[in-house]
């Protein structure tokens, strides 16, 4: 039966998750150079169009339609056929199915938007659209079905992912890794300074992301109940712990706590706790946040050493965060917190940890390989993924969009 409270909660949560995409656009755009601001923003915004269309016509059905062999949903929900204000019989049974559909749509949008941080300042707009559309179909929808779909094979094997550590963060992190490898570094890497053009913009983005994340993780309970509350609390605590840890490590390492470090740590903590949020205690969330702050910092520093041009650290934050978070869930999960979840290592169930690692391996490998292939195909079809060298020097805003971000 439909609950007004749950409906209200998930509708507002959907709005919050939608807001994360502009938030992400600003978070990323603040970090690029002044000549690539709009190009970066648009890559995120346009995902709202590309993915929403895809989602309405096939994505929702592939992810949550009637199961086909555990691998994908069939297309019986094409164009939202049968998706009405009656609840689904399988998902979120206390809210209209339209609410569930649109809430999930917001997740599908932000996932490829996350990838744009890795390709920033050099990828052509058209090929990116084609790639992201193909990626949604080939990577996002199936993985979403495996993990969250009724009948999905990973879910059936017991893999848990509360709000998208595998489905959102790991897939986008692996796609980012693939994109960095295929695209190669920005011109001038190592010689020029790629200093953020506006950190206040990045911090504004961080604030909006944090705010939206309450809808992302809290709403993933799909009801306004104690699980939602637990996920909400865990989200906040991991975010703050990640921020604390990154800042601290930086302070020790470089004698300076930085604002970008605080923002990065916060996002690391928030991303990392995502798969675990509804299944763990507040104290475990704090520990996960601390681990996230430390590991993502290390990953990003490591990247800097090897000259790997993941422009805005999608691999180091979302990829690593997705892995750590999913594995940490294998350690900290507790049925005492959420009877619908599992017991993890600390509750004496090492097997579940294994299950989670298996989930990471499968999703990570699949997302990486599929992304590489899709990028290569896109490269061939579009005759090149990167903008011309002179356009890269000129900046995407002018060369790809005939605009200038600021005219003060």
């Amino acid at each position: 039966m439909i609950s007004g409270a749950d409906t209200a909660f998930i509708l507002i949560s959907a709005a919050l998750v939608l807001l994360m995409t502009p938030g992400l656009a600003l978070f990323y755009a603040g970090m690029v150079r002044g000549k690539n601001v709009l190009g970066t923003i648009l890559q995120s915004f346009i995902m709202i169009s590309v993915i929403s269309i895809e989602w309405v016509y096939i994505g929702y059905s592939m992810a949550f339609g009637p199961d086909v062999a555990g691998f994908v949903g069939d297309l019986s929900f094409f164009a939202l056929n049968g998706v009405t204000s009656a609840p689904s019989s399988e998902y979120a049974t206390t809210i209209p199915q339209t609410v569930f559909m649109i809430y999930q749509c917001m997740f599908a949008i932000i996932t490829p938007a996350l990838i744009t941080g890795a390709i920033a300042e050099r990828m052509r707009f058209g090929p990116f659209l084609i790639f992201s559309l193909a990626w949604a179909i080939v990577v996002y929808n199936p993985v979403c079905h495996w993990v969250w779909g009724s009948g999905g094979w990973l879910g059936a094997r017991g893999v848990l992912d509360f709000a998208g550590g595998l489905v959102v963060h790991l897939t986008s992190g692996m796609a980012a890794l693939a994109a960095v490898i295929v695209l190669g570094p920005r011109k001038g890497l190592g010689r020029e300074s790629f200093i953020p053009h506006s950190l206040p913009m990045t911090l504004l983005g961080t604030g909006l992301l944090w705010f939206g994340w309450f809808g992302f993780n809290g709403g993933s309970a799909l009801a306004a109940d104690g699980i939602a509350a637990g996920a909400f609390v865990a989200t906040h605590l991991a975010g703050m712990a990640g921020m604390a840890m990154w800042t601290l490590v930086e302070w020790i390492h470089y004698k300076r706590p930085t604002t970008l470090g605080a923002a990065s740590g916060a996002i690391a903590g928030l991303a990392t706790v995502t798969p675990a949020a509804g299944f763990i205690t507040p104290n475990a969330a704090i520990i996960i946040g601390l681990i996230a702050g430390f590991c993502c910092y290390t990953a990003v520093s490591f990247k800097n050493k090897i000259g790997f041009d993941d422009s805005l650290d999608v691999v180091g934050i979302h990829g690593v965060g997705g892995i750590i978070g999913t594995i940490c869930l294998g350690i900290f999960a507790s049925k005492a917190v959420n009877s619908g979840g599992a017991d993890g290592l600390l509750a004496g169930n090492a097997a579940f940890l294994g299950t989670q690692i298996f989930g990471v391996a499968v999703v990570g490998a699949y997302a990486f390989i599929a992304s590489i292939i899709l990028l290569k195909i896109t490269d061939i079809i579009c005759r090149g993924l990167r903008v011309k060298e002179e356009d890269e020097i000129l900046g995407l805003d002018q060369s790809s969009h005939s605009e200038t971000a600021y005219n003060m």
Partner: protein
Amino acid sequence: MKKIEAIIKPFKLDNVKEALNELGIKGMTLTEVKGYGRQKGHKEIYRGAEYIVDFIPKVKLELIVAADQVDKVVEIIRQAALTGKIGDGKIFVLPVEQVIRVRTGETGPEAI
């Protein structure tokens, strides 16, 4: 007539402006510039990467003055801009051949 170009530390601007004012200098033009010199730049940190920023914000003042005023003006600027620390800046004097006031069309010293 001469053109004086003074590159100074931004926070000394108010000081210099007042000193010039007292001297009766009524006009000048200011540009935000970045200086590179003996004063070392600073390190910036972005996600664990260090960048050396070796261009330092400075302010450039440009004043046209009558030839006989040059020494006095230069000295006043120097005193007002002085901190004694590296990076205090430089003052250059260049020859000027003509000055025209747009509003009136006056030329030469009257136009300053």
